[in-house]
Structure formats: C-alpha cells, structure tokens
C-alpha cells in the first residue's frame, strides 16, 4: 500500500536535512509501529506522507498503491485515503467538528465516486463513530479542538479517522496524554477501524499501546533513518533498554557506509 524509498526530506525554510534516507514498506492489513528518540524525524515522516508544504523531498519517493504521491496536494492524498492523526492537533475556533467532517467526508466520497451524505444522514453516521470511541455527542458541535483537553484532542483525531475511513493512517503519538481507560478505548477504536484492507502506522514512545494494538512490524527511527526493524518484541526490548544500544549500531553503520 505504501512504499517509502530512500526518502530525504529537508526543511523548506533553511534546508536542514531531517530525513536521511528512509525506507519503509507497509502492506494492506498491516499494523506498523515507529519508535525512536525525540527529534529523530518521526513526525516529519508522517507529515511528509501527508504532504506538508514545510518539508521538501530532495531525494527518494513515496508511492501509495503503486503511484508516486509526491506531486499531490495534501487534500489529494486525503482523497486517495491517506490520513494523519496529528501529534499536536490544531485548534480551529469557529469551525465545528461536524462542519469540517461532513465537508471532508463528502469531498472524499465524491472523489472516490461514493454516495455523499445529507446533513441528517451524516449526523447518524457520525454518532455511530462517536460511540465507537466513547465520545459524547456534544463534541460534534464543538469547534475543532478548541478548548479540548489534551486527551480529548487525541480522541478527536481517532474520531475523525473513524469518520473518514482512510486506507492508510499515520497516528502520530495518539497514545500520548491518554489515561489508561482512554488508551484502551482508543486502541479498541483503532482495532475496529483497521481491517484487512487498511493499514495503520503508529508513532509512539510507549510500548503500552502495543499491548492492545498488536503491531506486525516495529521500526526504530534514529537521526532521520530507520535504524532497526523487528517484530513486537523489539518494542519490549526498547522499553527495557532504551535507544543507546541502537545509537551505537547506527553510528557504526553510518561510518561503515562512508
């Protein structure tokens, strides 16, 4: 579904290279987890996939369902079925969740040749999704993330994902800031949304969410590269030992390449 090939990404503004050759393949039906120290480039990777303008791809490619999406606008990627749950969800005062999501849902539906929903149909549809992650109805009519608690914002991202029903979801630290019950609810929501036709990539610092959402692959990103990949046991090892042992390996291999 997603193939990232030797991806190099710079900050548009000052040209600093953040991603230094990322390779990652995510297939239909898979759940991936990306871990790694602060500042290693996990969010940058997520945003590059979603098409954020601040990041310039200087080398490599991102293929979605076999086609390069580098030239596509963020909304065009969304139309194809790419979704990003933000590490820091943006507050948009004055625009309600319902307004945004109905417009987004219908735009995507139109682009994908599916039926659009009228306001009443959409309301019913959205309410089902709210139940899925145990959110109160009032959140539909509240301004997007405005005044939401940290945990509510994260939950709202998953709600949006549930409504838009994307093929590929990058969830950037959606588990951070959630209490234990909320974590279970959100994990449960993710499990219900993810089926054999979809793929999910969790960016996380904690092994805990992986107890509920079992990843098929775990990757460690260090200094703009995937330094190691493995199965869910890798996450357990990282939880116990941290990243030091990998940093050494990474730097050795960097040296080895030179």
């Amino acid at each position, binding site marked *: 579904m997603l193939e990232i090939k030797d991806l190099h990404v710079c900050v548009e503004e000052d040209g600093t290279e953040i991603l230094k050759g990322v390779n990652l393949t995510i297939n239909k039906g898979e759940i991936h987890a990306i871990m790694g120290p602060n500042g290693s480039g996990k969010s940058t990777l997520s945003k590059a996939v979603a098409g954020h*303008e601040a990041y310039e791809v200087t080398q490599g490619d991102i293929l979605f369902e076999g086609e390069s999406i580098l030239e596509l606008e963020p909304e065009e990627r969304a139309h194809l079925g790419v979704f990003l749950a933000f590490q820091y969800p943006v507050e948009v005062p004055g*625009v309600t969740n319902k307004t*945004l999501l109905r*417009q987004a849902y219908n735009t995507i539906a139109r682009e994908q040749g599916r039926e659009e929903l009228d306001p009443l149909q959409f309301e019913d549809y959205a309410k089902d999704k709210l139940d899925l992650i145990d959110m109160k109805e009032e959140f539909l009519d509240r301004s997007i993330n405005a005044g939401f608690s940290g945990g509510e914002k994260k939950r709202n991202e998953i709600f949006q994902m549930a409504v838009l029903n994307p093929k590929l979801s990058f969830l950037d630290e959606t588990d951070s800031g959630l209490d234990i019950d909320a974590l279970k609810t959100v994990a449960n929501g993710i499990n219900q949304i993810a089926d054999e036709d979809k793929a999910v990539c969790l960016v996380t610092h904690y092994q805990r969410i992986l107890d509920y959402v079992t990843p098929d692959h775990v990757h460690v990103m260090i200094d703009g590269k995937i330094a190691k990949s493995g199965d869910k046991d890798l996450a357990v090892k990282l939880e116990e030992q941290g990243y030091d042992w990998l940093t050494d390996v990474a730097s050795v291999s960097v040296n080895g390449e030179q």
Partner: protein
Amino acid sequence: MAKVKQQTEQTFLQDLLDFQGSLNGKSEFLDEVRLKGAEEVRNTPFPTKKLEDWKFISLRDLYRDSYELASNLEVDFPDFSEHFLPESKESRLVFINGSFSAEHSSTKALPEEVVIGNIANLAAEGNEQLKEHLHKHADFEDDVFTSFNSAFLEDGAFIYVPKDVTVEAPVHLLFIQTDADKNYFTTSRTVVVADEDSEITLVEDHIGLGDNKYFNLPVVELNLEDRSFVKHTKIQRDSFEAIHIARTAASVAQHANYESYTITRGAKLSRNEPRIFQMDEEVEFTVDGLVLIDGDQVSDTHSVMDHRFSHAESHQLHKCVINGKAHSVFNGKIYVQKDAQKIDSFQENRNLLLSRKGLVNTKPQLEIFADDVVCTHGATVGQLEEDELFYLKSRGLDEQQARELLIYAFALETIENITVDSVQELLVDEVHRYTERQLDSELTV
C-alpha cells in the same frame, strides 16, 4: 479637540446647493430642515486628509466628480425581489435611489399603533411624531456630511414604536441603488424611535444593483427610551464603484439596550460613523462590525461610544478581512465622562489580512475621566494560519474550502449574533462569494 485650519476644497458638492431649493414646497417642516442644512454646508468646509480624523482616506474622487440628484434621474431597474427577506414580507420599506417605492413596500405585519412610513409622505401629512424626532438625535456637530444629508433631505424611513409594543417581525429597510448612466447622489434619512418598554428589530440593507458610480449618504437616528430594546443590523452591499458615507446615531436611555451589527462588503470607499450616546444610567449597547473587502476597496469606521452616566456595559468587536490592495481603517473612541462610574467597556479590532498589499490602520482611542471603570481594548492583525490550513487540507478540503472555512469561522462570531435567520444565511453566502473571489490571483497580491 483643537480645530485644524483647513483650506477650503472646492467641490461639486457645494455647487449642488444651487439646486437644493427646487426640493421645497411639499412640506414646510422639511423645507426648514433643508434650509438649515444648506446653510451649514455653506459654512463648513468638506474634510480633507489634513484633518486627523480623515488622514487615512482620500475623498478626491468624491470631490472631483459631479453628481446629480438621484430623484431627478429616470430610473430603470430589474426585478430585485430576490433581496426581500422572508421574515419581512409585510414589514418592509423599499427606497429606490432614495425615493420611497410604495409598490414594493408593505407594513401590514406591524401592530396598528406603530407609526411607520416614508418621511416625504409623513411630512406632507404634517405628522407630529416625525416633527418631534427628525433631526433631533443625529448629534454630529460640525459634520458637513450630516448637514449635506439635511440639505437634500427628501425621503427616508420613519418608525415610531409606542410604549409597551413589541414588533415581532423584523423591519426590512431596503435601499436599492440602480444602475445609471450618470453619477448620482442620494441622502436618505432614517429615524427610529422606540418608546418605553418597546422592542424592534431593524435590518438596514443597502444594495447596489449595478457596478456604477454613485454617492450614498445615509443618516440614521435612533432614540431608545427607557427599557426599550432595538436590534439593528446594517448590511452595506453598495456597488463596488460607489462611495458610501454613513452616520448612525443612537441615544440610549435608562435600562435600554441597543444592539447593532454593521456588515461592510460593498462600495469602493465606505465610511461608517456610529455614535452611541448614553442618556441615563444603566444602559447596554453593542456596536459590532464585520468588514469584508478586497480589490482596492477602502473601509473606514470611526466610532464613538460616549459613556456619560454610571453603569453602562458596552461591547464593540470590529472584525475585518482584507485582501488585495484593500485598506481598512478603524478608529474607536471610547469616552467615559466624569462621574460615569461602573462602566464596563469592551473594544477589540481584529484584522485578518489575506494579502501582502492589504493595509490596516487601527487606533483605539480611550478618553476616560472617571476612575471606577473597566475598559478592555485591543487590536490584532493576523493571517490565515498555515497550520490550520494544513490541518483542514489533510482532512480532504481543498485550498478554497479550507480558506473559506477559516474566513467563515473568523466572520461567524459577528454573524451568529444576528437573530434574523435569512440575514444570517445571506451573510454566509456573502462570505462564500467573498472567499471565492479571493482565489482569483489578481485580487490576491
């Protein structure tokens, strides 16, 4: 304030006074008002940029061009019934180029006790209430534009709501300006008196049907007696070549509440001067504004909130969206007179600048002579947030949809307070059309 010495600028407006006498003969009362107005115009120079209050805008276009009296022109216009509000089917007064159109008006929905009609007819009938209130509340000292309006006062709306009467249906005051070959000017006057314990909702609606040049100079006087409640929405959708210079004065008595929302979308140059005068203790007033301008439009709001007695709550949120080379000016004066204690006044001017060449001048001006006063005031100039745009786009909205949603959200705060549903809807459409224009690359410079 010290008077600035001013060179007299020769304008065609002054020449027009020669024709002013031709309006006389239908009502002695109006003849007098006009005579006095003409006298004042003769003695008052028209403002120029040299005056502090006029330094940001140029009236050269207004002074250089010649204008004809609108009522002297033959009018020819298309059907404009699309602009009628469904809530005001039988509570509407229509003025075409300043003259009353009985054919398009209806006041059947209003309680019988309410005096409502056009000034020309009421004056000809010698209506006492009109005589009592006309030109009593427009307290614009030495203002040549108010005088000019008086000098050519022919027609306009008059409403008197007696004690204890609540007018349920919103009253739509529809000022239609037609397309014409010649430049014309129109000077409508609106007088609204809400007697004790009465209530009324007004929608003052200025619409230009063409893209022609004209000069629209409306003066609105409102008098709110004790415990009355007046909601006043003004929508200015004049032609994009028009000049709109407006004065609105409201006197607010004890326990009365004046709530106003002014929407500015049209005119090449517009200047609004709302002035609220507190006439007694315990009053509330709102003077909110929403300005949506682009191209080379100029919108200027000079407001005065005059707190003269204790216990007042006032609110002014003036929001502007500026694109292209448009220019927004805001000067909000808040006076709190000596002994006017316990005043709670809020003022904010928020600007959303969509282009590099757009311009904002903003100046809150507080003059406070009392000590037990809470005045919050401020001004901001911001742009559409890239993060917000990206967030919305990542959900599938295109550039146009995302911008529109953000501009709409910015504007909504004002629009959502307007209690007439169809007005809310038409303003949402205006915001939509406005943002649609914004993607036109020529406008976004």
